[in-house]
């Protein structure tokens, strides 16, 4: 089977130490940014499994992308995160689709 390249996007994620991860993610598997970061071996706890019920996938969007949101649940959870900026989001609330091609994100500090 040939993988149709049009069904994937490319994104770049930086971990808290600044290491770069180049990630290719399929758009047709109902994935979100948290899942593909975790799947690439990045240190994302994802305690709640992607329900916007923890804030362990707090990221900054560095590219110009402005995905819709954050919704109310997401804002509420960001209240438990630290160093929240205007470009802060929860990775689990960003669905991987073609609009996110070229996305650049960075994991936010976690506290301890």
């Amino acid at each position, binding site marked *: 089977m040939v993988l149709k390249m049009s069904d994937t996007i490319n994104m770049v994620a930086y971990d808290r130490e600044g290491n770069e991860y180049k990630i290719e993610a399929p758009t047709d598997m109902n994935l979100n940014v948290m899942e593909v970061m975790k799947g690439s071996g990045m240190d994302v706890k994802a305690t709640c499994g992607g329900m916007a019920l923890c804030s*362990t996938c707090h990221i900054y969007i560095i590219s110009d992308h402005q995905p819709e949101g954050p919704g109310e649940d997401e*804002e509420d959870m960001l209240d438990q995160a630290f160093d*929240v900026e205007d470009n802060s989001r929860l990775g689990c609330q960003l669905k991987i689709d073609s609009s996110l091609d070229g996305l650049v994100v960075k994991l936010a500090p976690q506290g301890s």
Partner: protein
Amino acid sequence: MIQTDILIIGAGPTGLFAVFEAGLLRLKCHLIDSLPQPGGQLTEIYPKKPIYDIPGYPDVLAGDLVDNLLKQIAPFKPEFTLGERAETIERDNDDQFVVTTNKGTVHRAPVVAIAGGLGSFEPRKPPISNIAEFEDKGVTYMVRNPEEFRGSKVVIAGGGDSALDWTIYLADVASEVTLVHRREGFRAALDSVEKVRELNRRGKVKLLTSSQVIGLSGNGKLSSVVVNHKKMGGTEIDADYFIPLFGLIPKLGPIGDWGLEIEDNAIKVDTFDYSTNVPGIYAIGDINTYPGKLKLILCGFHEATLMCQSAYKRIHPDKKVSFKYTTVTGIDGFKDE
């Protein structure tokens, strides 16, 4: 000292169900949890969410599942040490384990079952570089005794219920209360938000929104915090106390130093009976790992069941376990002592 048959560390669904399976074998259980209430992740993170993969329940709210488990295990009279974290473990001369909590409560049992889930729920600490220096010297993550703050200048950070509730409470106790929150809106209950805004209008509480605490200073004891406003930048305000209230996060904690084999923050077990590398210590539920492990409630129930069989053999080496269905035996609870 508290003596029991199986000492269970963690009162999440796995630990709770272990009480039932142990009870069928006439073994008594005592549970320790750092949270003030049983239920683990279900109560702490998602009490109002429906779960769809509990066999026999097309759907059940997490909070209801915990209530049902408590009802199911009630005949076996479990005892609890809540709000305390299991800190140290030792083996005494009679081959029993002695487990002591951070508050000094001592427990003793021939078998320990660690059902610690993702770890002990602990307050989330802000990433301020020198925060550890001021812990218990002005920085506190929990209000235990409000009187401690009488007449002091208190800065609270956070936007949830506990941040607002303590702001309201301490407004009458402290000489000055400042609430710092990262945005304009609050997720807390509407009437407490109204109350805080009212206290702010009356000058009883200072409200700094769109702001975060980014620095702490003092000489041996906290004397001020730096608050950064999104647009206006940093200001230093006097503070005797700083109380960051950002919810709880699970941490493996002291169990990591108990001499157990750990892999990826989980305890390695033998799937024959979920025993660890230390005979007499078992690990069940989210806290353990083995090839094919899934962190699911139903898997924790299964693990708890097999663990109890093995624990029985350890406690009564010369007796045979006779396997009987509950439909045959019914539930023969423990009498009050």
